[in-house]
């Protein structure tokens, strides 16, 4: 459609044009640099959010006392659309790297906490009783019984967290950044270079797909030593 000239390049460039742009920006290194920056932000924010989420989710999953203290507050705060925090955070910490790491961290934190807490809570009573019969101390109870049994939920949480982190980095970069894939897109939009915008979309699709595949592989590997309860 696009090649026949039915649609001007500003509305929908031909796939060939997008491919050429993709090649051009890859060769110049700009696309690679932008991708690396975005990925690095995701990695930092994800590590912070997932680490915090595992601890907090595990804590409110294990202790009903902590859960009754913090659970409702957490759930209420989790209802706020993530982007709503952006203006506040910009006022508090500026628009530097900290902003990105904090927002990506929150984006990861929420699904990780929800899933980990649920997974830990749902550990079969039979398994816990085995631990009690064997006189496990709390530490081995957690490492040898609760954690392995909760692996599937933990993984679901991490996967959702990573997807959220990836969504967020693009949003934050569109709004407040001077580097990264999101910024590249908003730049392309300002110059009315739709081919550049579409080229970045293609890169995003490839990265999203490979993240998903990687996690599925990892999950399959970890799931092998997962405990099954009849």
């Amino acid at each position, binding site marked *: 459609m696009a090649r026949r000239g039915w649609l001007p390049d500003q509305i929908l460039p031909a796939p060939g044009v997008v491919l050429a742009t993709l090649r051009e920006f890859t060769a110049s290194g700009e696309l690679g640099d932008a991708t690396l920056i975005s990925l690095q932000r995701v990695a930092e924010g994800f590590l912070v959010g997932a680490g915090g989420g595992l601890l907090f989710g595990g804590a409110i999953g294990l202790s009903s006392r902590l859960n009754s203290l913090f659970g409702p507050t957490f759930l209420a705060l989790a209802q706020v659309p993530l982007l709503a925090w952006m203006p*506040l955070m910009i006022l508090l910490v500026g628009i530097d790297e900290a902003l990105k790491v904090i927002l990506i961290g929150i984006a990861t934190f929420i699904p990780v906490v929800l899933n980990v807490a649920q997974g830990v809570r749902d550990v079969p009573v039979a398994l816990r009783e085995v631990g009690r019969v064997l006189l496990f101390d709390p530490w081995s109870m957690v490492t040898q019984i609760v954690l392995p049994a909760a692996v599937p939920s933990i993984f679901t949480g991490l996967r959702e967290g990573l997807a959220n982190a990836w969504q967020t980095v693009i949003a934050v970069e569109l709004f407040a950044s001077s580097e990264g894939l999101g910024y590249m897109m908003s730049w392309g939009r300002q110059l009315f270079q739709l081919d550049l915008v579409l080229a970045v979309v293609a890169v995003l699709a490839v990265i999203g797909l490979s993240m998903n595949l990687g996690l599925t592989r990892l999950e399959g590997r970890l799931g092998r030593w997962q405990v099954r309860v009849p």
Partner: protein
Amino acid sequence: MTGGALPWRPLLVPLAGLAVWEAMSHIGGVSNQILPPPEAVAHRLWDGFTTGGLSVDLAASLMRAGFGFALGATSGVAFGLMLGLSRWAGRLLGPLFLGYRQVALFAWVPLLSMWFGGGETGKIAFIALAAMAPAAVNTWRGTRALSRDYVELGAVLMFQPLDTIRLIALPGALPAILTGLRGALIAAWLATVGAELFLDVAPGLGGRMNEGRETFQLDLVLGSILLLGVVGLAFGRLAVFAETLLLRKRTA
């Protein structure tokens, strides 16, 4: 294990937080520019609703979210039905749709704003796009999981496609579709905030919040966050309520 016995316990942490916040903003050390006291935020919200245009903003945002949701949810359910019921559509468009899902949602903002502009059309297009994906995925999943027997029964009775949808697919896949609609509602609300922040300035909570940021009115920013959270919560509750209502009817 005494957690359930103390109904006031969930309030402890928020109240303590409020107290610390209150104390910090009064004792000093933190200027009111950085952290306005809670009553300033409450006051600001009250003012906004009585004299300022906050109710206009809230209505504009809700309207936008509603339109976008309606548009996205209907097209999402329709698309999901098509993917699930028609074999060639599932084979042809299914992988394309899954590929589309891998692209971060906000990546479509620049593209949509070039196609539809940054005004109301662009915003609603983005919200609709956000709402479409969860509706479509879940409807697709639900229709694919339909019992073969029912589908074959429909074939034996020589149902028209519309009858198949109305009498077999929709009732059978209802739980999955409702799950999808709930996801769509939440996504629509997130997208509303995003659209209002990223696209042209217009009445709406996101725009108001951005204005608060630019003019350094933290009470306005915090008040907007509170409102956005309350609406998000209300949407979630509403969806669950509608779900139980509809599903009860189904099984009864």
